[in-house]
Structure formats: C-alpha cells, structure tokens
C-alpha cells in the first residue's frame, strides 16, 4: 500500500511491504514527486515504528522525581485535562503553550492549534520550523506575501541554472539533490554557495566558499554588481516590485572588493556568479539551513529574495525562490496554523476579519494577540507553566542544551505525546503514546505544496493511538469543563473537510478522493482546479500585488572566534540520520553511521596534531562533547562541522541561543569552539 515517507520535505511516495510485523522491503511507485527514486532513509530507515523504545502505554506522575505510573487512557486524559485547566484557571491562557509537530499530519496539526486557540485561548502555538525555515518564512512573507517554494519540483527539469545556497542537498534532500545533479548532467549550470565541500559543491559548475555567516554580504555584492553592469530586469522591477530606490541606495557599501575581504571569495568569482545568475532566464534559487540558522537569517534570505526580484526570477517556470523544507510536514504544519501569529491559511490572528472567520467556524471568541514563538516559550518558563509537546525533542534540537534542561526542570507541567522515548521524555509529567505514520490516516504537505495521503498499513502497538484521536479526546474533556463547543470527528477525513471549509481559497478543491492518485498542490480553490504549480505568475500576495525590496545590512555572527575558542563550529546533518536521531537511530540506519564524527580541515588537524579517526573533545563556552575526528577538506580551515543527531554527544550543548530578531531562529551555524586531544 502506498504512503508518504516520514523523513524530509521531499514527500517521496513509498510502498512498504510489511510481513510478520516487520518491513521487508520498500519500493517507490512511479508517480511524483519522486518517480520511483528514494534515498537511504526512505528505503531502509522506515523500521523505527518497531523500535524497542516505542511508547506503548499512557503514563503519569505527580512530579519529576517519582517514577512513571502506567494508567488507562481515560485516566491519562482526565489527568492531563485537569492539570491544564488548573493552570488555565490560576494563570490564564498566557501560561500555556501547545507545540504541534511537523511530523504529524495536517489534520493533527489543525486539531492541535484549534485546541490551543479555541479551548485554551492561547496563541502560544509553534513547531519545529521555528528552528529551520522561520527566517525564510519571515523574509518571503514580507516580500512576496507567501512563504513556500514558488516553483514545483517538476521545474527542476526546466531549470538552466541552479543557485544552491547553504543546502547540503544530496544529504538532506537526496532525491532533489539527484534531480538537480541529473539536470546538470544534461547541461544546466550549478552555482553552489557553501563553506563546506558538499556533494552539491562536487557537482557544481562554480563553487563559492564564503566564510560562515557572510552570505548576506555576498548577495548584496552580487546585486550591486548586477546593477552596475546593467544586467538587471528593469521592466520586471518597474512593473512588479516596489521599494527599489531605497534598497538600491542601501547597496552602496557592498563592493566586490569589500565582499572579497568579508566573505573570502575571490571578487572574480562573485562577479561571474552574479553574471551567470542574472543572464540566465530560467535560474532557480534553492536554499536551506545554511542561510536561515543565523542571527541575521531573515536578513540573509531577504538579500537573496532581493537578488531574485532584481533579476526578475520570481513567477516564472524553471526559476523562483525555493526554500527546501526539512520535516515531512513542515509546510503543512505552517499551512495548518501551527504558528503563534497565524490561523490556518496564514491568516493573521491579529486581523479582525480572519478572527471572525475562525470564531464563526469554531463557535468561540479568539485571542487577538500573537503568541510567543517556541524559542521564546522556553525562555518564558516558569511564567509559562504548562507545555503540551507533540512529536518534538527540544532537549536535542534546541540550542544551548544545558540551559534548556534547566528551564525544563523548572517547568511545572509537561505533556509529551510521541511515538518513541527521547531525550525530553524524562522531563515529562504525562506521556501519551502516539501512533506512527505507518499506523494512521491523514495527509502531509511536502516542500512544493503537494498535499499527499498517509495511509494506515499497521495497527498501532500496545495502546498507542493516532495523535488526532488523542487531541480530540483531550479537547472533549477541556471543552466540557470550559463549556465551549468542540466538534467530534469520525476520522481524519472529517477533519480535512473542516480544513477545506476553513481555508477554501487554499484547500477547497482538495478532497481525499482526489488524493487517491497523485497528491494535489495548493492553492487549489475548486475541485476542478489542478492545483497551482508556479506561484506569483501575475501578482504577488501583498496588498499592492507587488513584491517588496527590503534593504538589509550585514552584521557579523554573535560569537566570533577568540584565542581561547579559535574555531567556528557549524552544525547540521548527515545523509544517514534525521534531526535528533530519534527515528533514524532506532532504525537500520544506525549501523551505517553509528557515532558522531566531527569534520576537521587537514590544516587545523595538522596544527593540533589530530589524526583522522582519533577521539577528540569539542569545547565551547557552554560545554564540551566527545567526537571522532574526521580529517577532511570538506570543511574549510578554521571551521569544524558536527551533526546534531547524537544524544550522547549533543552538538547543541555547544550552540548558543542568540536569536534572529525577526524570526527568533537560533544561530546554530556559528559558535566558537576549540578542539582538545584526549591524552
């Protein structure tokens, strides 16, 4: 039976064969988006639902020092409702936060944010895209009025130049990486901007290696050069954009000479990249965490947006602005309103018209104040007293781990709803065992806005239940006590029908029946609408219909190397693992990549006397971790790279919680460390 891969945002269609309670093979059907191709995670890493770490029974405890006690669902839900209501009564809605998950279905995210907003009255709703693409969301929304890939993945086959920035595509979105590389073999050009020599850099026509955290300077310099050479799209800028003059003036300091000094990239290369991008009609930009996870993440994405507008690349086939979304349903989690400032469909909670729509639909008054973002919620403990955490593992994924742990220690009430035990489970008061993607129905929305079905192939183990069922049951109890309305749904399709009603302009035409075949892309307002492939062909989603240039200035990273901590630590992922490792390290994948390896440039290794394969300590201002040194020129001199998948050696013990002022994303990509030999 066909379903959707639960790892990354590509949304590959998979057909797992399950025999005697295990997956014997995974094939891919010949339909979009993956057309029969998969990566190692989708092919060999789908067996985590069979892990011994599965949470099988609801568990409760009065305080963190007691052992968990197995209870019935009835008791667990009653207890959770009772505790949440007590906090609500004592401290009000501002003391509660609900985090839906970008790994659960659209229907489940919709219910979670509905529960938070309609029953608890709080807009403290957020999910893990806060930590990945919130900068892209902010920049794209401000400029274009929409925050998703502007172009479909099919456009890769029509693109003549790829500008891939800060994305290790062949490891983090391998099927897209392979699609881009194939197009390059057919003659398209590939410009890669990345401090690391990734698989994309290896395939590149031109590879620029800026110092970490300097991309913004590079893009501004490219824009200034394009203007100077007259290579910009004047009619596009005049007809489709606003704010050009002010932005143009802001580019004055960004000369090629200065760019070379700041970024470390030769000026000729910057000029060549700018020329190629500006003069190729079908040039598409693709990016990921390398751009976004900085204190100037929003500004950096903005600089790239400005560059694309200047050269007229948005709203055209084979071009566009394409953030590669990380989690399987990170697009959907945003679409469904799993964010503190918006309802489903990105309608602002502060906007009265939008609020009236949801007040009418849900039959309750709603809070007009945007909520706190995830990173802010953790900081607000213990003013925030109750957190309902679904499918997230902040102890592994948040920066500055020791600080976060201290915050969780001080949190009066934590509910964890998840499929597997993880690093955050020990901090819980209530554990609600959830069904995995193999064990429930629903939809995920992939990175190019394609809504796709998730199908039940197995029964959940133990007493695990689908997230939507748990949310519905908890909601029922809260609603009864609060005297508020709460709809009950026979299943996910009924929830989806409500979503279609809630945001008809986006999802109105997408029915489960239509999704039997291929997925359908939003916006899709009517059932006979094919779903929009390229966004903004005619107008942007801003009030004026025009895209906005927004000036942005370069600022250096918050933590710069010092004599005591002379190296820059950059964190990220590897092909074989996924985020905190909760899924991938409980699957067959663990054998292929069992332990943390930290990439060290040969020059740094030689100076420090570190041999390839030696165990070292990576030491930062906030902590230290042990890792095996991998001496490789994949990473530039002065930079070490550590994947953050390994709970026993968590890279996020070293990262700092300096945040972007707009998106509140942490600066995961730059912190200062030193390497110590273990003598």
């Amino acid at each position, binding site marked *: 039976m066909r379903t959707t891969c639960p790892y990354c945002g590509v949304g590959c269609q998979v057909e797992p064969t399950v025999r005697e309670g*295990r*997956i*014997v*093979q*995974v*094939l*891919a059907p*010949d339909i979009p988006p993956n*057309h*029969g*191709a*998969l*990566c*190692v995670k989708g*092919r*060999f890493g789908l*067996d985590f639902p069979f892990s011994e770490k599965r949470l099988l029974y609801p568990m409760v405890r009065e305080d963190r020092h007691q052992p968990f006690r197995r209870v019935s669902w009835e008791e667990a839900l009653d207890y959770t409702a009772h505790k949440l209501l007590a906090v609500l009564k004592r401290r009000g809605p501002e003391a509660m936060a609900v985090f839906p998950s970008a790994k659960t279905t659209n229907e489940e995210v919709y219910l979670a944010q509905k529960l938070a907003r309609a029953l608890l009255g709080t807009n403290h709703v957020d999910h893990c895209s806060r930590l990945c693409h919130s900068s892209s969301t902010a920049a794209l929304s401000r400029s274009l009025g929409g925050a998703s890939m502007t172009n479909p993945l099919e456009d890769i086959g029509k693109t003549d130049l790829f500008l891939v920035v800060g994305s290790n595509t*062949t490891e983090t979105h*391998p099927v897209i990486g*392979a699609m881009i*590389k*194939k197009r390059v*073999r057919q003659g398209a050009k590939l410009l890669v901007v990345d401090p690391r020599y990734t698989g994309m850099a290896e*395939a590149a026509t031109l590879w620029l290696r800026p110092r970490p955290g300097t991309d913004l300077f590079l893009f501004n310099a490219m824009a200034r050069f394009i203007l100077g050479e007259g290579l910009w799209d004047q009619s596009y800028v005049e007809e489709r954009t606003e704010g050009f003059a002010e932005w143009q003036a802001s580019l004055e300091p960004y000369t090629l000479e200065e760019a070379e000094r700041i970024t470390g990239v030769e000026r000729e290369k910057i000029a060549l990249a700018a020329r190629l991008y500006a003069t190729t009609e079908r040039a598409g930009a693709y990016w990921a965490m390398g751009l976004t996870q900085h204190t100037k993440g929003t500004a950096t994405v903005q600089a790239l947006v400005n560059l694309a507008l200047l050269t007229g690349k948005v709203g055209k086939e084979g071009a566009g602005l394409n953030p590669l979304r990380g989690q399987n349903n990170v697009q959907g989690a945003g679409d469904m309103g799993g964010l503190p400032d918006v309802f489903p469909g990105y309608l602002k909670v502060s906007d009265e018209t939008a609020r009236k729509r949801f007040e009418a639909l849900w039959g309750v008054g709603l809070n007009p104040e945007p909520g706190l973002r995830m990173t802010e919620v953790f900081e607000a403990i213990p003013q925030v007293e109750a957190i309902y955490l679904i499918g997230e593992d902040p102890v592994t994924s948040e920066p500055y781990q020791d600080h976060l742990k201290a915050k969780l220690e001080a949190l009066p009430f934590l509910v964890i709803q998840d499929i597997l035990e993880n690093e955050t489970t020990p901090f819980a008061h209530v554990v609600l065992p959830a069904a995995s993607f193999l064990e429930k129905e629903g939809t995920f929305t992939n990175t190019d806005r394609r809504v796709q079905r998730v199908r039940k192939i197995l029964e959940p183990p133990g007493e695990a239940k689908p997230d939507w069922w748990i949310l519905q049951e908890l909601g029922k109890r809260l609603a009864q006590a609060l005297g508020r309305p709460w709809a009950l749904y026979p299943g996910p399709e009924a929830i989806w029908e409500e979503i279609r009603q809630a945001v008809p302009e986006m999802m109105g035409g997408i029915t489960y029946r239509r999704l039997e075949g291929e997925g359908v892309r939003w916006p899709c307002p009517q059932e006979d609408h094919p779903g929009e492939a390229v966004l903004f062909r005619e107008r942007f989603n801003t009030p004026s219909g025009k895209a906005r240039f927004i000036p942005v200035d370069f600022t250096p990273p918050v933590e710069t190397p010092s004599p005591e901590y002379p190296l820059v630590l950059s964190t990220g992922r590897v*092909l074989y693992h996924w985020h905190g490792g909760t899924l991938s390290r409980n699957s*067959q994948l663990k*054998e*292929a990549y069992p332990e943390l390896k930290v990439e060290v440039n040969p020059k740094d290794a030689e100076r420090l006397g570190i041999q390839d394969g030696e165990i070292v300590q990576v030491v930062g201002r906030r902590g230290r971790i042990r890792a095996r040194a991998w001496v490789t020129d994949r990473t530039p001199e002065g930079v070490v790279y550590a994947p953050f998948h390994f709970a026993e050696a968590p890279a996020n013990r070293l990262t700092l919680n300096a945040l972007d002022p707009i998106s509140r994303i942490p600066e995961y990509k730059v912190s200062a460390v030193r390497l110590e030999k273990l003598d």
Partner: protein
Amino acid sequence: MRLKVNGRQVEAKEGTLLLDLVEVPTLCHHHHTETKGLCRLCLVEVNGRLLPACATQAQEGMEVRTDTEDLKALRRTLLEWLALSTDLSQAPALLELLEAHQGQPQRWGSLPVTRREREPIRDNPFFLRDYAKCVNCRRCVDACGDGIMGVYALTLEDRGLLAHPTTPLDRPLPGTPCVFCGNCVQVCPTGALRPLSMEV
C-alpha cells in the same frame, strides 16, 4: 506518421519508441534508468533488419514485424540461455516468460562456466549483491550513474559469461561513493540485489 506493424496500419507520434507500439517482452529497458538495447529480448524486424524495440523510434513508412518464427526462436533461445546460466529463482517474471515461450534450457546441455557459482556479497547493512542471479541487464549500473543518482558506485566488468556488475576496483560498497539509496535494488528484475530484510 504512419507505419505498419505485422501488416496493420498504425498511427504514431514523432519520437515514439517501437516498444510503445508493439507487444514484445523486454528485460533491460527501464525508463528511469534509461537502460535500453542490451537484453535483445525486445528485438523486432524492421524492414528486414533486427532492431531492439526499446531503442528504436518509430518512423514514417516502417514495416515492423514482431512475431516471425525466427524472432520467436530467438527469444526462446535467449530466455533458455538466461535460465541455464543464471539462478532465476527470484525472477518470477522471467520464469513466466520462459514458460510462455516453451523454453527448455536443458536442451543445450550444461555450460562450462555459469554465474550460479558466484557467492553473495554482504558488505553493507542494507542489501545483498547476489550475482548468481544477475543477468547483466545493467539497470543497476544506470540507476546509480547517469539514469538517476549520478553516483557511479557500480560498473560492469568482464565480458561474456564472466560479465557482471561490480564496484570500481571491486571495493566493498561502503568504500565507494555509494549512498545506499537502494535505487539499484528497486530496478533489479531478478533479485540479484535485494534488501537484507528479505532474508529470513
């Protein structure tokens, strides 16, 4: 354009492969891996010449025959040789085809060298390379290389009955650029590449 297939007039669009117009068996052809023209099972007679239907585009005025006695005999022989030299126990589609063509592999006697003696290679946590079952269709090599991945961890070595896919310099897969996407496993028609999870 118009052409004749087995004496019947057929309409076809520019660029159509003969394989899309005629009913013939095929083994190596795969549109994702772009493999074509190797196994010779889909040979057809075009204006008196033998051409692989999977690698030949339809052209105006072509006279195509797919069912001559010679072609039937050729397919039968090809299938018999595959069955004789290779372990087809996990290739149900090929076994069916062999039966449909009334193949009798034993009529050729035994071969001096066969693939059947090759030992399975287990060098990674995910899948097995069991070249006793390999018919050299090359799909795996193409899936890994130009067709899908652009990784080039697989290549074809040797000739004739000794020919087999392997890694560059016969290295274990973890020592190659292999990313274990398993796309080679997916396109393998004979079970020569198969997930370890299938082994009991």
